[in-house]
């Protein structure tokens, strides 16, 4: 019989990865079960990467608590996990008196949520903080704690650290059914060691566990249903997003006054110096990640209102993601299931899921503790991730050192982002490593730049085939079925 894990976490999005990282410090066996073939392939990969400060959510909601706390935790998380995080501050721009009244409401909201140092500022200060902000803005809510990250880098870093501390990662394992052993009413904590309350049936094999954490994003309603727990429905509030080419100086996040359903079209810099315009909001069929001409035009138009000199021709990528919202509520659902003991929900983690992730993880730890799950700290837990070398950002001396250790560090494969072959190989060999072209891209940026892999894709395919010991025809762009080449042409091999 297969191993029984203390905890299985369904979903390797930013929520699941953060929870895995949080719980890895305890003497527990943990398995992260992911439907897709890599980390962060759902909502976590397609969002603006903003670490919102937390002045938006209605006070008293779960969202309000974890957003502000998550934003606060990001500094520590970035330091320990070695991902890029820029706490730049942000402005919500107002253009008239009505907007100003709204900003004041936001500020009150933020104060109630514990967001620090919020203030309303005038045109002069706006210009000082972000010279490219529209000169038509008459007022702004200045929020120094806002920042941004690469959302998949956060998820990857968190899971790498979790795996280094003994967590198991199972990819390509969509949960098809959940068998639950009904116990008497003694509660989960009373059950003995090795008692498998849940069996997750997946094509990659069954996973047995005592406790189950549902962090399945858009699949959260299905998981809850399969376990016989709360019935709810996911709504896919889809958003198109546009990435523009790098600027000499990254823009500070600029928000418009929010609408009732979303924060509106936001313009922000990124940790790599690009500009991101995020995001539209439209309810579409679940899992739809198509871009639409109307959405993209709305983004570009919205962005120009905030930053009039933005060169919106320099589009590097347009993509779409979704906010997995629980129908009927705007709030997150974090807690033990009221129906199935031993099942813990982290569902409905829509915006601001990225900003909240570290706090959701912290809250989940508390929820487990409150449910009587024994959490004993491990002596050998290491909170620090071994950060892979980023050649482009490395100082000259480090660059030289790397090339000296292995000449493959001197061989650039991706010219747009200056990614050498050795960095790509390292991305594949990391644990969990990249097994697809997009997986490589998310880990080391090869193919992320302005040519969108036109120059380097065939080389990355060759490196993946070599490292994974497969034929180029078996190399995937992303998940199963996304083959890139059929095989050799007729004639010589």
């Amino acid at each position, binding site marked *: 019989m297969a191993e029984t894990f203390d905890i299985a976490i369904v979903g390797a999005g930013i929520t699941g990865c953060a929870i895995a990282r949080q719980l890895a410090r305890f003497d527990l066996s943990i398995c992260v079960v992911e439907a897709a073939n890599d980390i962060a392939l759902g909502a976590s990969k397609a969002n603006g990467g903003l670490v919102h400060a937390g002045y938006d959510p209605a006070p008293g909601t779960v969202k309000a608590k974890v957003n502000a706390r998550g934003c606060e935790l990001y500094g520590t998380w970035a330091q320990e996990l070695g991902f890029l995080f820029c706490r730049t501050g942000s402005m919500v721009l107002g253009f008239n008196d009505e907007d100003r009244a709204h900003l004041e409401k936001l500020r009150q909201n933020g104060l109630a949520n514990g967001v620090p140092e919020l203030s309303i500022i005038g045109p002069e200060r706006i210009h000082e903080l972000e010279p490219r902000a529209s000169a038509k803005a008459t007022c702004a809510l200045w929020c120094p704690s806002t920042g941004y990250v690469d959302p998949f880098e956060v998820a990857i870093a968190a899971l790498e650290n979790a795996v280094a501390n003994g967590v198991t990662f199972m990819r390509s394992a969509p949960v098809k059914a959940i068998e639950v052993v009904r116990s008497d009413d003694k509660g989960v904590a009373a059950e003995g060691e090795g008692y498998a309350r849940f069996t997750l049936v997946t094509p990659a094999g069954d996973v047995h566990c005592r406790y189950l954490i549902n962090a399945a994003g858009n699949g959260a309603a299905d998981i809850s249903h399969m376990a016989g727990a709360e019935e709810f429905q996911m709504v896919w509030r889809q958003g198109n997003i546009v990435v523009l080419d790098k600027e000499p100086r990254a823009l500070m996040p600029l928000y418009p006054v929010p609408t009732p359903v979303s924060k509106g079209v936001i313009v922000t810099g990124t940790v790599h110096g690009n500009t991101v315009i995020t995001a539209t909001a439209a309810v579409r069929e679940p899992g739809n990640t198509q871009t639409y001409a109307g959405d993209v035009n709305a983004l570009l138009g919205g962005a120009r209102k905030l930053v009039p000199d933005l060169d919106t021709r320099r589009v590097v990528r347009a993509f779409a993601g979704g906010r997995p919202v629980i129908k009927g509520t705007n709030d997150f659902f974090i807690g033990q299931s009221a129906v199935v003991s031993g099942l813990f929900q982290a569902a409905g983690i829509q915006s601001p899921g990225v900003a909240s992730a570290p706090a959701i993880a912290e809250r989940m730890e508390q929820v487990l503790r409150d449910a009587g799950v024994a959490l004993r700290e491990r002596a050998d837990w290491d909170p620090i991730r071994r950060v892979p070398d980023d050649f482009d950002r490395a100082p000259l001396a480090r660059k030289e050192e790397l090339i000296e250790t292995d000449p493959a560090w001197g*061989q650039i494969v991706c010219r747009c982002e200056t990614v050498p072959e050795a960095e790509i190989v390292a991305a594949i060999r990391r644990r969990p490593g990249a097994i697809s072209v997009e997986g490589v891209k998310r880990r080391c940026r090869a193919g992320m730049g302005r040519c969108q892999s*036109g120059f380097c894709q065939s080389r990355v395919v060759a490196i993946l085939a070599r490292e994974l010991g497969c034929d180029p025809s078996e190399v995937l762009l992303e998940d199963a079925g996304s083959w890139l080449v*059929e095989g050799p042409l007729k004639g010589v091999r």
Partner: protein
Amino acid sequence: MATLDMRDGRAETGATEAVQTQAFDVIVIGGGPAGMAAALAAHKAGAQVAIAEREQHLGGILRQCIHPGFGLSHFKQELTGPEYAQRFIDQVRATDIALFLGSMVLGIDSSEGAGAADPGTNEGAGDAAIHTVTLMNRAGMLKLTGRAVVLAMGCRERTRSEIKIPGSRPAGVFTAGLAQRYINIENLKPGSRAVILGSGDIGLIMARRCTLEGISVEGVYELMPYANGLRRNVKNCLDDFGIPLHLSTTVTRVIGHDRVEAVEVSQVDEHLAPIPGTERVVPCDTLLLSVGLIPENELSVGAGVELDPRTRGAVVDQNLQTGVPGIFACGNVLHVHDLADNVTTESERAGAAAAAYALGGSADVETGANCQLTVSPAGIAGYALPGRITAVALTKLNFRVRRPVDAARVRILAGDEELFAGKVRPLKPSVMESFPLPAKVIQHALDQGVSEIVLSVDPVEEA
């Protein structure tokens, strides 16, 4: 021949030392047709020359252009891309031009005092600034210094994102050049059933290439009401193979979650906007994009070179010198050419001018001339080179038109005065036009005291 190829044992010896510096007169960035022609011309003029090339081989994109059609004007003979390139590679290898292959240039520093070492080879160069080019390869980091730099980095393909094709983002959407690399270099088949968007030359060539390799081409779709490639390519690559060309039609949606399953195409109106109700779904597993080329000027911008928003290449003078003294540009990094032969011709001029600059014997007599060349927005010219004229001399002008016309006249204007008028003739956007502007026209313009000469290409209604 000096080589710092990573495969060259000599390269390894320097790896443990601090960043080395080597001095040259002229540093050419890029070893494609432009870079090789510039380097050879500079060498011929007596300069010590280095070529920095990121690939392991000289030849640039020509290496994957295995179709014929090269060399007709330069060699009076029809060659394939690799054959055309080889002629220059052989010439380069026969010289002492230093080759830095597999070498990525990280930056060009032209600030004062940037030069870490004095070349000491040419006292006549006066007080010209020294440019420092930082590059890296498998042997380590290296700095090259030169009195002149020739930018010859070529161009890249416009991507799906830049033209904002909506829909999903599955595998199977390739730029035509990437598909060409898979087929011609890697011997890999990118798919079975292809739709090609864009009738630029690469798209046309790839339509034929795919057909020859057993990849069925469902059709070539073109947003504009005319083909964008050369006439001969439309005939040789589409007509001869019975591949349909659908004008005023574009891809409006990519369909398929993991791999392309189909594309939706729509006709467009006179404003190039898709016409609702004309959507048609074309099943395919591959979408090739030939939707334009963009000069790759990230290094140039980093070096402080001003770009022309029309060409997206550097603003240059009649010697192909950019606004940064001593930095020259040629080939597709300057403006996208139609034929490799024209790249060669232009780059020879740039190389010779760079050598003259580096060696301190500039061909131009100081005249104090400084005049901008612009294009008239009223006409159909898309751009004109050179953007700046600083000498009274016979000056080669290049331009392209934005749409095809049966009859148009090229005129040179200064203020309200017409200085020059060409013959009425047909013009196509696929052809890079050039004509010599006589010195006396420039002198005349200067005598009028104008600071701007305007090139206007005006369609002529013929009776």
